[in-house]
């Protein structure tokens, strides 16, 4: 149904489109990163496409996509050990960002995909085109660490600012724990001043008996 849409993008931006495919009725065009804003502007504003609703921005990490990396066909409970990931040659381009677009008036959908190499994860922001892109880009930045250049307020959406790393990357271990966040040293109306000198920087839970010697940096 939306194949016409893919053809239209190919016709308008012959150099920008590097690949396109269709799977189970979902049309996908892969475009070059530098043409993203131009293509998205066209898709949003052209009356033929009219893709005014940005449903979602997703990031995908292809690091362990090959079947042998997830123990394909073997017991589902087996996890890929960390050292295995380092031994294998890296997959490039490792990431991609996908934009799920939809047109309410024309009832067609298109997925725009931009491939990213692991050493350069910058993507132009489309917050000027779609207001809803603001939070979705923050979400994708939070989970994958993609830098959306031009985003007005690129900070984590779901995780807290002290969180280190990006949890949905495939090399982020599932069971990894992070140190507790130290209590901020500012006066509290009820409890009085914060931990102050000596106590500052130590999480409350670690100041209790028996946990004093836990070094927050190694606590995981």
């Amino acid at each position, binding site marked *: 149904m939306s194949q016409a849409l893919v053809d239209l993008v190919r016709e308008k931006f012959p150099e920008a489109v590097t690949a396109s495919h269709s799977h189970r009725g979902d049309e996908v065009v892969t475009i070059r990163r530098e043409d993203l804003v131009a293509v998205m502007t066209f898709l949003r504003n052209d009356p033929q496409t009219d893709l005014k609703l940005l449903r979602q921005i997703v990031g995908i990490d292809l690091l362990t996509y090959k*079947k042998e990396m997830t123990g394909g*066909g073997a017991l589902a409970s087996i996890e890929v050990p960390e050292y295995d990931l380092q031994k294998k040659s890296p997959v490039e381009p490792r990431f991609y960002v996908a934009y799920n677009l939809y047109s309410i008036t024309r009832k067609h959908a298109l997925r725009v995909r931009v491939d990213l190499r692991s050493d350069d994860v910058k993507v132009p922001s489309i917050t000027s085109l779609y207001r809803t892109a603001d939070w979705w880009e923050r979400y994708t930045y939070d989970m994958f660490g993609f830098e959306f250049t031009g985003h007005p307020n690129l900070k984590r959406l779901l995780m807290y600012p002290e969180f280190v790393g990006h949890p949905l990357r495939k090399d982020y271990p599932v069971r990894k724990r992070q140190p507790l966040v130290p209590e901020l040293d500012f006066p509290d109306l009820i409890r009085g001043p914060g931990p102050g000198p000596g106590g500052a920087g130590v999480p409350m839970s670690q100041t209790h008996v028996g946990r004093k010697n836990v070094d927050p940096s190694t606590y995981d």
Partner: protein
Amino acid sequence: MTERSNAPAQDTDPLSLDAEMPSALMTVNLGPSHPAMHGTVRMTVTLDGETIVHVDPEIGFLHRGFSKSSENSTWHQVLPYTDRLNYVSPILNNTGYIMGVEKLIGLKPTERAEYLRVLGGEICRICDHLTCIGAIGLELGAFTVFLYAMEARELFWDRIAELCGARVTVSWTRIGGVATDMPPGWDQKLRDILPRVIELTNEIDTLLTRNRIFVDRTRGIGVISGDEAIDWGFTGPCLRACGVNYDVRKAHPYSVYDRMDFEIPLGTRGDTYDRYVLRLEEIRQSHRIILQCLEQMPPGPIIIDDWRYALPPKKEVFGSIEGVMAHFKLIMEGIQVPAGEVYVYTEGANGELGFHIVSNGTGKPYAIQLRGPGLPILSAMPRLIQGHAVADLIPVFDSINMIGGEVEQ
């Protein structure tokens, strides 16, 4: 003061009668745990007097790593996580996810299962809308409305408990069908409670819709135009309240919605009041769908007979070698879903519920990412509430019906 009374009043003099009141912007924290905040959301509100200058919603307190957990579970193990995305309408979430897996496989569930899913889904939609309306009423001082809504919801949740075995976290759908069929006599029980639910809905209608206080508090508050709402990514009741006719059930009928006769109510103003009235009307439309489901539902199996995807019946597991093998493979390895990438979308209670699912052909999903309908709507809170009084924050926040589970995953 006696000395000053002789001097002519000057505008710059802070003590003169005509001087402006000194005002500075004040920042107030609402939440993360505040009686008026649903779930744990923190709103940093900048106030000028009582007028809201800016709101900065901060989410993530309820983040449980839905995507990461799903990537490390088998396809069926993801199902209980989807219950907890929107705990008021779990069957809608179950169906949305399972439809994604079925789309990847290219599988079609049995006809009876389709009807059961629609039936369960519409019951959940009513529960969700009742919860939203009850909460709006509660927080505007109409406690009776809340009690009426809860009574109606309880009636449904009792039926859901009889159908699925659990009230809230039902995990009821399965790949290729559903887990349990209607118990004997259940459909009559459901028919018996429906008039009471509609009666309660009408009570709420008469209590609120033409209530002067309620109308004053909601009409013209949190207004957004249709074009702008699309730009912000609105879907569901909040978008339709602006007059935009987009409902996945009508635009792209999935399951058996194409055989159902129902209407999509539309608002005109896009304010809090329209969002409330629209939900009330959707309850009546869902009631129509439930009745049609009960009438049209054909007899037959509730799950497909394909042991690559559905568990074999226990009689076969204990009685035949093929049954044992299929059971063992499904439990230990999980179903094997062909490689591919799909985006599947259904009409959740609060808008388009989307799952972006990637499979690499193994027993686990390679990636699952959620489009919770509440996330884009919550991100527009600063736009909706700007310029209104701080007391209006609560009704507007209620009317978008943000559910922490699906927004914060």
